[in-house]
């Protein structure tokens, strides 16, 4: 047994879970445990109490509402990966999921867990920030929500307070018909932590002009970053316009530097991956006919 001793509690309702969390600052949430259990094994984390939320019915399930798909926090990554609603309506999430860990970790790891863990190189937080998803949070005073841009603060630090837990993620669904996504990342090994990851989503009109564009960058800053691509609206996403928009957006970004990749390397890779992700999204959108339903 490698972890330090802890008390294990499995509440039967979300309200009970929040009350347990609020009443004990040494308590931590466990769901899939794919990041927390290694930290426990290495004793980097030594919570006195683990609150297991994995089987709470309030946190399960994927549902559509107008203009959004709401993904319950305990949705397994593997389940989201093959979910038809996510594939059709949040294609960016479907596209990145094969890059999240490996099949065995995706079978246990949850969407909400990856959000709450806030690793700056993780793919699911990157999708949330890029698409402007809303993080839905359960508290002892009932539910609340906040934009993902406010939720992620720095590596492994979020705006979650004591007694709070991520309950779902609300991913916006674009109304346009011709939507395409692109995703690329560079890591030491497949499915290892990304040094740089870029995710793009574009919408085109019938003539191939851009109606909307979103681009996000992971692994470079201390949290996932959404880059301003508003200048691309109205263009045909030609190489020169895309390059100008990306260079302008990346100008003020401070890149992380570590043992694996220097800041200069990350910045260079970021420019290239961003361009390729937008191009991949454009090609993906172009392949869809203007008349076809989304």
């Amino acid at each position: 047994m490698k972890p330090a001793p802890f008390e294990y509690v499995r509440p039967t309702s979300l309200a009970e879970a929040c009350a347990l969390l609020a009443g004990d600052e040494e308590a931590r949430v466990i769901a899939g445990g794919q990041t927390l259990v290694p930290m426990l094994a290495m004793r980097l984390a030594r919570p006195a109490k683990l609150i297991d939320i994995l089987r709470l019915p309030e946190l399960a399930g994927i549902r559509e509402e107008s203009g959004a798909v709401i993904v319950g926090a305990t949705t397994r990554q593997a389940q989201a990966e093959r979910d038809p609603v996510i594939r059709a309506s949040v294609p960016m999430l479907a596209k990145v999921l094969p890059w999240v860990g490996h099949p065995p970790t995706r079978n246990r790891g949850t969407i909400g867990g990856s959000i709450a863990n806030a690793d700056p190189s993780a793919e699911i937080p990157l999708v949330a920030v890029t698409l402007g998803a809303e993080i839905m949070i359960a508290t002892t005073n009932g539910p609340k929500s906040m934009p993902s841009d406010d939720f992620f603060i720095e590596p492994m630090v979020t705006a979650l307070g004591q007694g709070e837990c991520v309950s779902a993620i609300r991913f916006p669904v674009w109304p346009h018909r011709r939507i395409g996504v692109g995703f690329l990342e560079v890591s030491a090994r497949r499915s290892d932590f990304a040094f740089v990851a870029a995710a793009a989503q574009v919408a085109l009109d019938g003539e191939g002009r851009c109606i909307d564009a979103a681009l996000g960058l992971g692994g470079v800053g201390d949290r996932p970053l959404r880059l301003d691509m508003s200048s691309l609206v109205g263009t045909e996403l030609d190489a020169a316009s895309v390059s100008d928009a990306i260079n302008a957006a990346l100008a003020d970004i401070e890149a992380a530097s570590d043992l694996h990749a220097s800041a200069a390397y990350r910045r260079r890779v970021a420019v290239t991956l961003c361009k390729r992700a937008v191009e991949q999204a454009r090609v993906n959108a172009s392949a869809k006919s203007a008349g076809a339903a989304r």
Partner: protein
Amino acid sequence: MKVDLRINGASRSADIEPRKTLLDALRENFLLNGTHAGCEHGVCGACTVLVDGEPVRSCLMFAVQADGYEITTIEGLASAPGELSVIQDAFCETHGLQCGYCTPGMILAADALLRHTLTPTREDIVEAISGNICRCTGYGQIIEAVQFAADRLRKANTLRPHHDAAHHGHAERDTPAEGVLEAAEADEPVVEAK
């Protein structure tokens, strides 16, 4: 804490401390030593078991979290004592193992893959075993073993009870794709199983 588990089709109970992983419980409480302890922090895949038919790292799950699931370990694959499953046999035939440390995890990962599809591409196989580290074989013979097992299972004239066609969509039917004669002749590993 008293924990009730379903392991290889049998109900087992034990008094287990919450901080004990499913891996340690399987090995120490239930003496199922086929599940190997490698890195013990979710990197190597040696401890892979099936939870409701899907591969999971038993070192990243506490035993107290494992009630209510069907847990399958390497001991649960063979049909009878002294027998080998088709996949286990394929690993022997193609020399898909040397030291054997990663083998239970590899075989369980392959087992889950071949319950989804009997026509995996090479990429499907590589992805399925991507979370399992082998330091002996260089993976070539392991991939060959999975292809060989898929080929044999496709040709097997038996019912496959675990198939879940409704769930996975692309699962094979339970009738053999080719005849028994081909099965008998299939002593050469098929490199491009399609």
